[in-house]
């Protein structure tokens, strides 16, 4: 008997090892990509700064010229882009996995719009800034999430109703943002752009610590639940039978995902489609070899940094990152719809 099972067992072991390898390879590749983008943004812009000077500036030395360009202009921008992108990618994938639907990302079901509306309200109407805006925005994001969930669960199931309710909620919140912006003292287009499509133009080094804390705390909370989340994909009953505390997991995941989204949105505005795109791309790359959370976070970072770089330097005019990701993301959503429809599945 044992001799008959052994080869199968060995093959299974080997397959598992290969899958794990693929996951590590993908994550490694994405890490390298993130670092490459980071260095590219820091050294190549309107003028080219040699990498040695970049490193010197980061280590705190004063280099004439490079200190200003790299330290004041590029570093805050790229750090904010990196952290916000990671936040959006992680949170988007968490929502998608938790609700078992690629369309259930925070930017489609209104969570990002809610956080953004709260941030605009806090800044324009209440003259708040920094951490208090983020807290306000987290609170509003949670309220919107709970409202959308509450309105869409009927006889214990949400399904596609959740997405439709979310679209309605998002439409209303967008008009709240539009109203608040029209109430602002002067219609500052740059500022408005930030809240309509998201932009890292006003990034400052002082915003980085808050983002770091958010990514560290909420991100690690999410990643600590990544195994449970994977099991949740098989269905609530199965997960429960396998020993996952379903409701607790869901609560932790939702809290930390909303936290990530809200702190990110309070800094840069809702950068269009990053949360929606990262998850499906990550799933494609790792193709079921492990948790999609970490790769999705890295992809989010790549999207925001890359989108910002394209918007700044590769197009004839300078565009905020949200315009670039919006123009990239919407065709992808349409492609996703067409592909799912063709296969005969219903969305």
């Amino acid at each position: 008997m044992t001799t008959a099972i052994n080869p199968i067992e060995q093959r299974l072991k080997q397959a598992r090892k290969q899958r794990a390898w693929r996951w590590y390879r993908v994550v490694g590749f994405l890490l390298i990509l993130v670092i490459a983008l980071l260095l590219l943004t820091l050294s190549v812009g309107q003028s080219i700064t040699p990498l040695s000077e970049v490193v010197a500036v980061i280590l705190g030395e004063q280099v004439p010229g490079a200190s200003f360009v790299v330290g004041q202009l590029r570093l805050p921008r790229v750090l904010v882009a990196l952290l916000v992108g990671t936040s959006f990618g992680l949170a988007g994938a968490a929502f998608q996995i938790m609700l078992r639907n690629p369309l259930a990302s925070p930017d489609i079901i209104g969570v990002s719009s809610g956080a953004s509306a709260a941030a605009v309200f806090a800044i324009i109407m209440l003259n708040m800034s920094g951490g208090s805006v983020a807290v306000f925005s987290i609170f509003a994001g949670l309220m919107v999430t709970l409202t959308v969930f509450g309105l869409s669960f009927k006889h214990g199931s949400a399904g596609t109703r959740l997405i439709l309710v979310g679209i309605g909620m998002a439409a209303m919140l967008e008009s709240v943002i539009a109203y608040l912006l029209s109430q602002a003292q002067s219609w500052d287009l740059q500022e408005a752009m930030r809240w309509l499509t998201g932009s890292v133009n006003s990034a400052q080094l002082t915003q980085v610590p808050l983002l770091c804390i958010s990514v560290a705390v909420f991100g690690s909370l999410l990643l600590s639940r990544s195994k449970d989340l994977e099991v949740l994909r098989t269905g609530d009953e199965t997960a429960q039978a396998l020993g996952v505390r379903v409701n607790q997991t869901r609560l932790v995941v939702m809290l930390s995902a909303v936290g990530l989204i809200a702190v990110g949105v309070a800094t840069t505005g809702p950068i269009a489609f990053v949360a929606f795109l990262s998850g499906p791309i990550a799933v494609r790359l790792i193709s079921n070899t492990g948790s999609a959370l970490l790769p999705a976070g890295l992809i989010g970072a790549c999207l925001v940094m890359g989108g910002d770089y394209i918007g700044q330097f590769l197009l004839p005019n300078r565009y905020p990152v949200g315009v670039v990701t919006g123009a990239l993301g919407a065709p992808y959503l349409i492609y996703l719809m067409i592909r799912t429809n063709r296969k005969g599945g219903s969305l």
Partner: protein
Amino acid sequence: MKFLCTYFSANRFPPMMLIGCSAVLLIIMCTLSISIGTRVVAWQDIINGLMGSVATMEEASVAMRLPRTLLALLAGSALGISGAIMQSVTRNPLADPGLLGVNIGASFFVVIGLVWFGLSQMSHYVWLAIFGAATTALFVHVISAIGHDGATPLKFALAGAATSIAISSFIMAVVLPRNDIAGSVQSWQIGGVGGATYGSITLILPFLLIGGLLSLTVARKLNTIALGDDVAMGLGESVTRIRIHAWLAAVLLAGATTAACGPIGFVGLVVPHLCRLLVGIDNRWLMTLSALCGANLLLAADVLGRILARPSELSVGIVTAFIGAPFFIWIVRRQKVKAL
């Protein structure tokens, strides 16, 4: 809500009575729209203003409110009819020119005309708006109709939302680098009737009239389509021709409205639904009542926007979104559509 639905169930009231009531309401709304605003006016001023006198500030402000009221009236009825047609043709309860991205598509083409081809006269860009509306409608329809189960409400709403976001990004991308027109970007994102002039009304009037006529002539045929494509064909109707006819009417109405007011959402969603509760599914009554109620809703929203944000005002597009989005969610919760 359930109580209301059964109470107002179809054909409880004779259609003529409903239409009479909404016509009376419309007159009241027009009076309100002329008399309410930042500046308080007396009855005498209103009458003088209507006679064409602009001697005092009060009379002048009445004269200013006239084109605005007229535009809200026209735009509201156009959007109401357009929404009723779209819901009938697609048999989709969530169809609405705003949600399907048709309005923002019209905006997009107008912006492109403004920026790249230097078309600054409205007589030129009415055509662009209608063309844009038609292209977007076709695009959204084709995308959501792919697949075996056809255009489900969810696919429709998603395709519309995705197209809207993409088009908004493109509008931003076109407008942002150009400071001379960047200030007007707001008016292409939120619809309003505040900037109405008699000139713009006369320009869109022919399109609205043709659209209205087309929809009147298609109303009866849409009733046969409602029985199902097979039955309609059995009754000797060309289903495709009716569809094209109906879409043309809907797109003309929505496109011309957007050319004058910018994108206004949810009117075409809310109004036909309420009217269907009142008069039932006969498209002839439904469209007539939708036109009247649409005008009522838009006028009411405009007046509300002026009252709420006094002494400034809220764009009517914001007010309709606030009224319409909860309504949208209510429909989603109520529907027992197979996709839900």
